[in-house]
């Protein structure tokens, strides 16, 4: 099976980590080797010490991209979940990584502010947190993401389904298929079951 990188981008609270973990579970179920690089976790080790200036943010995204490339060229599915607000660095990663699939977790700021599970938007709006993406720091929307999920409207299940189906269509993951027996196959099975007395 091919390795590839599935890169989740979107504002804080837009569902990147949740979707990444759900997709991870499904890909594992299908027998794939998977690693998730979640920005929150990466910042405690791989990018420890980096701040939130544009330069540090770019460095963080480049480091995640570097590791994703190493993993995916060795047959592993690397899943990154990072705000990655700047288009230019995301495009650098796209150029670096052979099989790169971007998932844009789209969600309006109003919805995120309402949700505000971690209370970060409230703090940012009060000015207690500086350089907060979407509030006083820009988020550059992708123009060419392979998948766009609108997490303000879609359920987690719907978004996951969309991502998985895209990966199937791109032949990056095996299809599980929903087809029934063909007519000939059904006849063969029917005959066997008749022979066995089940029908």
């Amino acid at each position, binding site marked *: 099976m091919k390795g590839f990188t599935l890169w989740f981008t979107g504002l804080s609270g837009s569902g990147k980590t949740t979707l990444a973990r759900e997709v991870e*579970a499904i890909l*594992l*179920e*299908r*027998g*794939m080797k998977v690693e998730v690089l979640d920005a929150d976790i990466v910042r405690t080790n791989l990018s420890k010490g980096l701040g939130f200036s544009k330069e540090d943010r770019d460095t963080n995204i480049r480091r995640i991209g570097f590791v994703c490339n190493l993993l995916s060229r060795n047959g592993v599915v690397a899943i990154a979940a990072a705000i990655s607000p700047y288009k230019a660095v995301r495009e650098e990663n796209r150029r670096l990584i052979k099989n790169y699939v971007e998932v844009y977790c789209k969600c309006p700021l109003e919805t995120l502010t309402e949700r505000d599970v971690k209370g970060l938007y409230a703090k940012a709006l009060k000015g207690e947190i500086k350089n907060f993406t979407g509030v006083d720091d820009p988020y550059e929307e992708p123009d060419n993401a392979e998948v766009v999920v609108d997490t303000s409207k879609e359920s987690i299940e719907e978004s996951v389904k969309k991502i998985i189906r895209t990966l199937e269509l791109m032949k990056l993951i*095996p299809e*599980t*298929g*929903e*087809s*029934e*027996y063909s007519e*000939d*196959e*059904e006849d*063969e*099975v*029917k005959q*066997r*079951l*008749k*022979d*066995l*007395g*089940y*029908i």
Partner: protein
Amino acid sequence: MTKLVVIGLDCATPQLVFDKWLDELPNIKSVIDDALYGKMVSTIPPITVPAWTAMMTSHDPGMLGFYGFRNRKSYGYDDLYFANANYVKAKTIWNYLSRNRMSSLIMGVPQTYPPKPLNGVLIASFLTPNKDVQFTWPDDIKAELDQAAEGDYIIDVDDFRTDDKDKLLKSIYVMTERRFKAFRHFLKKDFDFAMMVEMGIDRIHHGFWRFFDKDHRLYEPGNKYENAIKDYYRYVDSEVGETLKQLDKDTSVIIVSDHGAKTMHGAICINEWFQQEGYLTLKEQPKEQTRLKMDMIDWEKTSCWGEGGYYSRIFFNVKGREPQGVIPQDEYESFRNQLIAKLEAMTDENGNLINNRIFKPEEIYRECKNIPPDLILYPGNLDWRSAGSVGTGSIHIYENDTGPDDANHAQEGIFIWRIPGKKWDKREDTISIYDIAPSILKFYGIDIPENMIGKPLI
């Protein structure tokens, strides 16, 4: 991480394994020492599909949404489908193991065709149409499979309903030998969980039960196949022994069947009975035994019909539901109760009650997905099977309408679980088929999903 190997013996039955022949099955007996073991209550109905899938998901047939091999796709009269792996929506043990980065070897477990990807290797079951299709995961192990089997890997024995018993016996042995060889070959690779299901015991029960069971009406003392089933059990035991030898001392072992077996007295021609009782009318009465086809039925004069098999699925012709329904919907329940009372009063040819058991699906399942039968009938509590044919001239027949068959399925199978180093405090008298999946998940330290209906045994 400790490993677990499951050896599934389809139809292995407690009265033979535990009560009758245990001393002659030294390898199985060796597993029983210090094991949790007992009878295992199967699904209703106790047949291969849905039983193995229920065992692997801890979901009942209603939750799974299939009630046998063939199921109604719509309320059309002849719109049936075969419940293959694509219809299994519930997660199996190996789905959970894969999610938790553990690998599985799955071989011959029913309802795994077409094969789905997993972390490991999967070889689909006897419901694979033929070996030209993709029936393994990954696809490229097919050649290795034949090599490992040291011959053509056999999906199932051919020509099962035959009077050529020598040929049948031989082919069952060949199938079993090759299956176990292949399983041991793949087992050498490093799996966290490995499971195989061998179908030979089921096949030999149906083919040879009359030759050893003194209670069978066709039993003849001193016949040449008197020991065929016992010898085969001993052979299977030796294959189990060879497999056990290959395991390291810390590997846990489960030996399990999906249901048991019992003598079949004969068959109840359910549609013949429906005709006699005025529930079923044919456009033209066949002069000889004929398989009932839906286009033979005069639907305006028919309120119900039945499917044959080891049990019977009974369907009602309901107004507004079936295309030419006749039972008013508000009379559905009273009709059903009246029919149950009549079925309960069914007798044998001598006027003795045969003790039919009848189930309403919604009373035995947590929920009823897709289209369940209106009633499930165990003729004579499975002492009889159900024949769907018409034109038999009698409700009771003694030559099976689908070919020679001596045994019916029984509600209870076997269960044996040895965990090295673990002493069980007590023996379980009866285990539920639904307890196995949560037990295995607990063994691996995986949280048991709330939608599993069984309870862990450890």
